[in-house]
């Protein structure tokens, strides 16, 4: 029940009392906890996990090409699970290429999502890092730490 206008303190007291009543009514075992023996034996009722059974659908001499493809797929999946894969699959793109790509990719995509202010800063940094000889003049004279625009109170 929630009585409107009840103090939060009295509410808390009521809740605590309710909890006490409930927990006293709860039954609990007085017996000390038995030491759980970690059993090292798992019971299993399926033959599939014990023996190495192949997949049940089979097709021979090209009677059903889809099933034949499936046979190769399922049986090689089973073998792979058991044997640790030493040879990795040939990837379309090699690891080195991926690493190179990522280096450049993160930068370019990241730039796209910057705010306009940040983009300008980035451009300044880039230009500074590049040739110092080429100086654009006005546009680059903005200090790198641009002043944060504070809220200007309207003057009365």
């Amino acid at each position, binding site marked *: 029940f929630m009585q409107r206008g009840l103090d939060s303190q009295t509410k808390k007291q009521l809740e605590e009392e309710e909890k006490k009543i409930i927990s006293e009514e709860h039954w609990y075992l007085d017996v000390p906890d038995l030491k759980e023996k970690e059993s*090292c*034996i798992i*019971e299993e*009722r399926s033959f599939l996990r014990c023996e190495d059974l192949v997949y049940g*659908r089979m*097709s*021979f001499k090209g009677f059903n090409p889809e099933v034949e493809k499936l046979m190769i797929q*399922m049986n090689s999946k089973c073998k792979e699970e058991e044997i640790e894969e030493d040879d990795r699959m040939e990837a379309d793109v090699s690891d080195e290429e991926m690493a190179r790509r990522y280096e450049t990719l993160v930068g370019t995509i990241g730039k796209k999502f910057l705010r306009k202010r940040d983009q300008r800063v980035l451009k300044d940094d880039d230009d500074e890092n590049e040739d110092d000889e080429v100086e654009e003049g006005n546009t680059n004279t903005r200090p790198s730490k641009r002043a944060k625009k504070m809220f200007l109170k309207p003057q009365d």
Partner: protein
Amino acid sequence: MAAESGLAAEALVGQVVLPGDLLLLPAHYDEDAEGERLRLSAGAAPQGRLLCGPGLRRSGAGLLVTKCGLLRHRPAGGGAYWVDSQQKRYVPVKGDHVIGIVTAKAGDVFRLDVGGSEPASLSYLAFEGATKRNRPNVQVGDLIYGQFVVANKDMEPEMVCIDSSGKSSGMGIIGQDGFLFKVSLGLIRKLLAPKCEIIQELSQLYPFELVLGMNGRIWVKAKTVQQTLIIVNILEACEYMTAEQRRQALAKLSGN
């Protein structure tokens, strides 16, 4: 009844065991520190947990045999013991791929007969690419190849035709024609063994398609009715033929 003293499990691998035999495992599984010391000195302890397969039950420190058969052992992956027994009646087990026959459509689920004590249920959404609008075209009397997702002895078994990633991977309605027959469960396991000679020899004969369900049902389809029947007869008979007899029979057939 005095309990028999158990025998070491490793000594009985490959021999006949009877229900009630107690198999003692080597004392690798104690938790005492002394046990650990003993373990290190006694040799390499098996890593991981021991798998106690069908026909065996965990009891105290050992395994109790509940079915008669040959005891098998697999040392890889933490070790596994199980009893290789023969039976004709199938008991649904979770994860098994079986062939079921649709017996009824009840609203959103199909009832399948899988050879167990109860018909299994299969929801129409458990097919690949099935939605509420796009229902699979399943009629009464169709054959379905699926796997069990719930299979206790207290509940009605449930089947699905997709695997955990949502792909059908070969499960679903089995096509038209073909021949369905029943064999014992031990033969199915023999046929599904990795390098089965029977299957290899049969595959040399002529093109055909085969679906094996763990519930003892086999579906065969070949180009002509006669070829289908030949394969059916060989599969039924090869349970009791020796390898020699089988080769003779196949040689006669390929000669024809």
